[in-house]
């Protein structure tokens, strides 16, 4: 197969050294794992910069790296909407307004916060959905990477799947959340430094940013857009048809910038868990902000090379192609790996592949370490074996359960990966469904945090109603040219969106607003069962103000938030 790589001993040596290090970190941390708290919550001991880099590394999974490079080739610079408008405002909001309650409530997970703030049934609903979603996501991303490795590197699907799962299991089983977080920091540096040569070489070849603009212009014009539609972000969002994403500015603003991103960054335990592991309330607030700094720059690492890939694809002499060796169709997921192949000689090639493996592992370890916490505390401890009077014995017991849950999580992920291979469409459908729970969840948590009248019954019904509306909307609409019912329209098609992304945005918008209105409405007619004392620390108006602004102004979270916001605005204007 002409697409396989020519790897030399040095490439394998780099991968091997990396594996030794990730397992070694788990091994060293093993002796600190004396109780459930250390294993599942990292003993709340992480410095802000460690938690912050882990925070962003978990998000920088294989699907993100592969998907966003592909999107760079598909949509150009508009892909940065997933970063500058679709992540940064939500991360700042999480840091400044929500972290004090998540961290201060002493809840060990997002479902547990729901239990403290609302009631058991709301927690149960969220815990079970979250556990299922996490494992599913983990399985799908394992499948995606293993299939790529097979297609491009010629590595056996089963071997790469089992081997990478075994390594992740190894270090998370040994060192728990601490090991996952520490490795995420290491993986963050590997991903950035490993992919960096691609950025330099690809930009060098096309003649820098001006050369890229020039190279893209005729290609973009031939697609029927303005020549600079791929190198600008907001300029052509006045009408959906004039930009490659097919969404108007208000769709981007409300869908991506508000519901989807707030739903993801502010409620997803996978992400929030990293900030909860921080060593102090101030460190917890700083965690998302420190993560936001690299997050803003990641587009230059993965989207820009994707854009260069589009130029290369249209240049027959470059020999670059993302044609899938099996289907013969262009496969945008292949973009990053084909770029590695195109530019990197042995040596840095091994490093680039290690970066891909690292992104895969950081995503998967994130899923597994969030799953085992929710499973142990929110499912096992709540419904199977509640805590007894003997706290010490309990902690030992839950440590054992946490470890077993880690194994369970990895094994079920592997099963999910095989299912994804066999029933790809069904798995995609399930993932679409699960992605619908985040938007209503954000509405409910935000109401709970900032409005003390919000009741448990209202939150529960609000969540279910938001979910139902999302399903209904998905069932009644379809993206243009959809060939399978997985993409929507399985009830009947009453509205057609130009692209799938627009459909996702509007599904989330409907779900979020339905959920919010029903929760507000029902809160007026149902009785608040929690007393004001019980809600202290959980709700804004009932929590004594802690002065977060002591110390030098340079070390305050609010200063950092202003810096992050300023950089995001400057970047937006520069690439308007």
């Amino acid at each position, binding site marked *: 197969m002409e697409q396989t790589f020519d790897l030399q001993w*040095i490439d394998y*040596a*780099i991968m091997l*050294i*990396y594996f030794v*290090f990730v397992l*070694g*970190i788990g091994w*060293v*941390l093993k002796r*600190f794992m004396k109780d459930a708290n250390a294993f599942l919550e990292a003993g709340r*001991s992480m410095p802000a910069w*460690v938690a912050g880099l882990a925070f962003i590394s978990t998000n920088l999974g294989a699907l993100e790296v592969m998907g966003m490079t592909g999107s760079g080739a598909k949509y150009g610079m508009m892909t940065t909407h997933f970063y500058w408008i679709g992540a940064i405002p939500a991360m700042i909001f999480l840091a400044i307004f929500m972290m004090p309650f998540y961290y201060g409530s002493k809840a060990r997970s997002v479902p547990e916060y729901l239990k403290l703030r609302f009631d058991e049934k709301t927690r149960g609903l969220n815990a079970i959905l979250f556990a299922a979603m996490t494992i599913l996501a983990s399985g799908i991303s394992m499948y995606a990477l293993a299939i790529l490795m097979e297609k491009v590197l010629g590595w056996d699907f089963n071997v790469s799947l089992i081997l990478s799962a075994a390594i992740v299991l190894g270090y998370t089983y040994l060192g728990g959340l*601490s090991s996952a977080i*520490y490795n995420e*920091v*290491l993986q963050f*540096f590997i991903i950035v*430094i490993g992919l*960096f*040569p691609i950025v330099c*070489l690809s930009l*060098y*070849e096309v003649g820098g940013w001006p050369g890229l603009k020039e190279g893209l212009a005729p290609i973009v014009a031939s697609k029927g857009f303005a020549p600079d539609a791929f190198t600008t972000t907001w300029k052509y969002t006045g009408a959906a048809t004039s930009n490659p994403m097919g969404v108007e500015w208000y769709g981007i603003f409300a869908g991506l910038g508000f519901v989807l991103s707030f739903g993801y960054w502010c409620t997803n335990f996978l992400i929030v868990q990293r900030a909860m592991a921080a060593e102090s309330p101030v460190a917890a607030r700083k965690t998302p902000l420190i993560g936001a700094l690299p997050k803003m720059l990641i587009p230059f690492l993965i989207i820009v090379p994707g854009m260069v890939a589009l130029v290369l694809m249209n240049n027959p002499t470059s020999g670059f192609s993302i044609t899938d060796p099996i289907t013969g169709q262009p496969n945008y997921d292949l973009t990053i790996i084909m770029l590695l192949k*195109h*530019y*990197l*000689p*042995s*040596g*840095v090639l091994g*490093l680039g592949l290690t970066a891909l493996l690292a992104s895969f592992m950081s995503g998967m370890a994130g899923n597994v370490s969030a799953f085992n916490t929710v499973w142990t505390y929110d499912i096992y401890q709540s419904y199977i074996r509640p805590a007894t009077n003997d706290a010490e014995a309990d902690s030992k017991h839950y440590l054992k359960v946490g470890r077993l849950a880690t194994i369970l999580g990895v094994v079920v992920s592997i099963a999910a990966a095989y299912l994804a291979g066999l029933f790809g469409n069904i798995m995609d459908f399930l993932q679409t469904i699960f992605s619908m729970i985040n938007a209503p969840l954000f509405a409910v948590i935000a109401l709970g945090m900032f409005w003390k009248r919000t009741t448990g019954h209202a939150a529960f019904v609000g969540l279910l109603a938001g979910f139902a509306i999302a399903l209904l909307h998905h069932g009644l609409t379809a993206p243009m040219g959809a060939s399978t019912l997985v993409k929507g329209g399985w009830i009947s098609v009453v509205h057609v969106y130009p692209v799938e992304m627009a459909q996702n945005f509007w599904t989330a918008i409907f779900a979020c607003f339905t959920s919010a209105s029903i929760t507000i409405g029902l809160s007026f007619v149902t009785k608040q069962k929690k007393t004001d004392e019980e809600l202290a620390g959980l709700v804004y108006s009932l929590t004594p103000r802690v002065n977060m602004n002591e110390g030098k102004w340079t070390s305050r979270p609010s200063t950092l938030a202003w810096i992050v916001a300023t950089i995001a605005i400057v970047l937006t204007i520069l690439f308007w």
Partner: protein
Amino acid sequence: MLDIRIPVGLLFVIFGVLLLVFGIATSSYSDMYAKSMQINVNLWSGIFMTIFGAFMLGWVKLAKKEE
């Protein structure tokens, strides 16, 4: 507990030196570097990574001194 800067620093020093030496050894292989437009990426990445790794290890030392 373990200071994460130590494994990060060590790993990048190892990677850096490995690539640096490999880059020097292969510096005359123009076929190999045709892909990267005759830029010896191994050498440059090696230099950069060694400096980064050393910086991480130096930071640990500095932090220890301050305590």
